[in-house]
């Protein structure tokens, strides 16, 4: 027995109008200051006003949201007593909203209780509606809430997961991404690319996820460069928004692996946006798993995917086809000017932190989903190879 979970998904122009079909009247909006500043909140609240719904806003979500922020938002939510929680933003407001939803419905639980094997019985007090304002995280589809915790040794990202935390409804309205800055478009687009590329070879890979990943790749490969060149192309924006959601569905049901272990640790240590980290690590991680001396399975899977995606020929060997896929990822990174690790941190920062970061990677549940295992030495070498922009030869 296995599962394919997905929220009810409403997409396309005017998808926000779906709120009319919801009877719930009391909305608790979780968002961040950027959404307020750039007026995206007004699109939502104007709609709620028209529909005669009430709302209360928590807008203190920061990048890499901390557990203290979640507890503060949960308290405000418990006091407001909504019947609809609306997450508006990128991955961070989504992550906060999922956890707040749990603590609103289950005030008896704490952050460390968010593990996947208990029954939460969410939905008795409220539904969770997720409205992404970036095209990449896929958080509107997934069961994960990434929470930053301060420790004596520095910040770590907790990867808390539960299938009941998947939002009730995802609304993909391109109006919310039409003004997204191009750098953010590139980094979040590569977040989606990392999702689909990692999940197709993860230990929990499955046919449903592979199908979603293939279409998502096709759309991202085509439309990310178009949007990066012309951010006003709304057709391309809409396609990219759908692609990110599909990549979210793909990895949400199959999981990601080493790139996200590396990315979460790097992001938590240096507060670098998630999409930049996992997108940057992607070719190195793919090379590492393709070099598996004990199995050809990854070569076969990724090679076949490359052929289906049209980046390799059907008569290419599996390894050559898979290498062409890696080359295509690198090409797209250049097209959207995705920065390398040595543009994100200094050599000194790397050297001072790499041992601890490699240790933290081992605590990431994502690390265990890789088709090729990695120990602390392998993680360390992956950090160094990425920094030096060297192809992975081990």
């Amino acid at each position, binding site marked *: *027995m*296995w599962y394919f979970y997905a929220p009810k998904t409403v997409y396309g122009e005017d998808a926000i109008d779906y709120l009319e079909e919801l009877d719930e009247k009391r909305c608790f909006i979780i968002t961040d200051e950027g959404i307020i500043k750039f007026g995206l909140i007004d699109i939502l609240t104007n709609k709620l006003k028209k529909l005669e719904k009430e709302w209360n806003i928590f807008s203190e979500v920061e990048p890499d949201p901390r557990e203290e922020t979640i507890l503060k938002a949960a308290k405000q939510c418990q006091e407001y007593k909504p019947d609809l929680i609306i997450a508006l933003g990128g991955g961070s407001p989504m992550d906060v909203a999922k956890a707040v939803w749990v603590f609103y419905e289950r005030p008896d639980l704490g952050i*460390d*209780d*968010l*593990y*996947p*094997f*208990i029954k939460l019985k969410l939905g008795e007090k409220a539904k969770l509606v997720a409205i992404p304002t970036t095209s990449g995280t896929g958080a509107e589809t997934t069961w994960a809430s990434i929470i930053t915790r301060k420790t004596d040794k520095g910040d770590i990202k907790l*990867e808390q*997961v539960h299938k009941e935390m998947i939002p009730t409804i995802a609304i993909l309205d391109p109006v919310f991404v039409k003004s997204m800055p191009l750098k953010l478009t590139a980094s979040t687009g590569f977040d989606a690319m990392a999702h689909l590329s990692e999940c197709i070879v993860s*230990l*929990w890979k499955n046919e449903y996820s592979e199908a979603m990943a293939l279409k998502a790749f096709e759309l991202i490969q085509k439309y990310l460069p178009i949007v990066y060149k012309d951010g006003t192309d709304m057709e391309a924006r809409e396609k990219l928004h759908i692609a990110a959601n599909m990549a979210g569905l793909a990895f949400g049901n199959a999981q990601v692996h080493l790139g996200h272990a590396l990315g979460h640790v790097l992001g938590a240590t240096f507060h670098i946006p998630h999409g930049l980290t996992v997108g940057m690590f992607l070719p190195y991680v793919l090379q590492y798993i393709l070099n598996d001396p004990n199995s050809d399975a990854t070569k076969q899977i990724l090679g076949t995917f490359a052929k289906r995606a049209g980046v390799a020929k059907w008569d290419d060997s599996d390894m050559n086809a898979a290498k062409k896929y890696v080359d295509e990822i690198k090409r797209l990174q250049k097209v959207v000017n995705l920065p390398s690790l040595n543009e994100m941190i200094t050599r000194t920062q790397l050297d001072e932190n790499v041992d601890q970061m490699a*240790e933290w990677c*081992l*605590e*990431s*549940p994502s*690390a*265990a989903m890789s088709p090729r*295992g990695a*120990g*602390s*030495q392998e993680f360390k070498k992956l950090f160094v190879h990425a920094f030096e922009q060297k192809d992975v030869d081990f």
Partner: protein
Amino acid sequence: MGILFGTEQWIEAYKESVNSSKAYEDAAKTWEGDFVFVCEPAGNLDHEIRMYIDLWHGKIGPKGARILNPSEEVESEFVYSGPWTNWEKLLQKKIDPIQGLMQGKFKLKGNMGKVMRAVKAAQELVNCVVAIDTDLY
């Protein structure tokens, strides 16, 4: 011919396998906690097997590892249990320990949040079984 799973001889081999595994030591260097693993009768297994294993910083811990007698009660931080037919799948790496929990094939008692931060270590514990020439029931 291998060693029959769940026997004294097997647990001795498992202790050696865990203690000599660099991969487990690396993945579990901060782990402190003991388990009881319960194989419930099913398929070709007609009796319950319970194993106590203390794990400490990537090695078998000071309380050791042993097969529990049928009437023996023991306190442990975690209990991981499931029918033998599912253990067979786990030991043959057809499913992983967390997937087994997700699928309801196994039950875990104890601090699950702690276990979720040690998924890699749990995988390596299974790899330590695979490293033994084990006869299944």
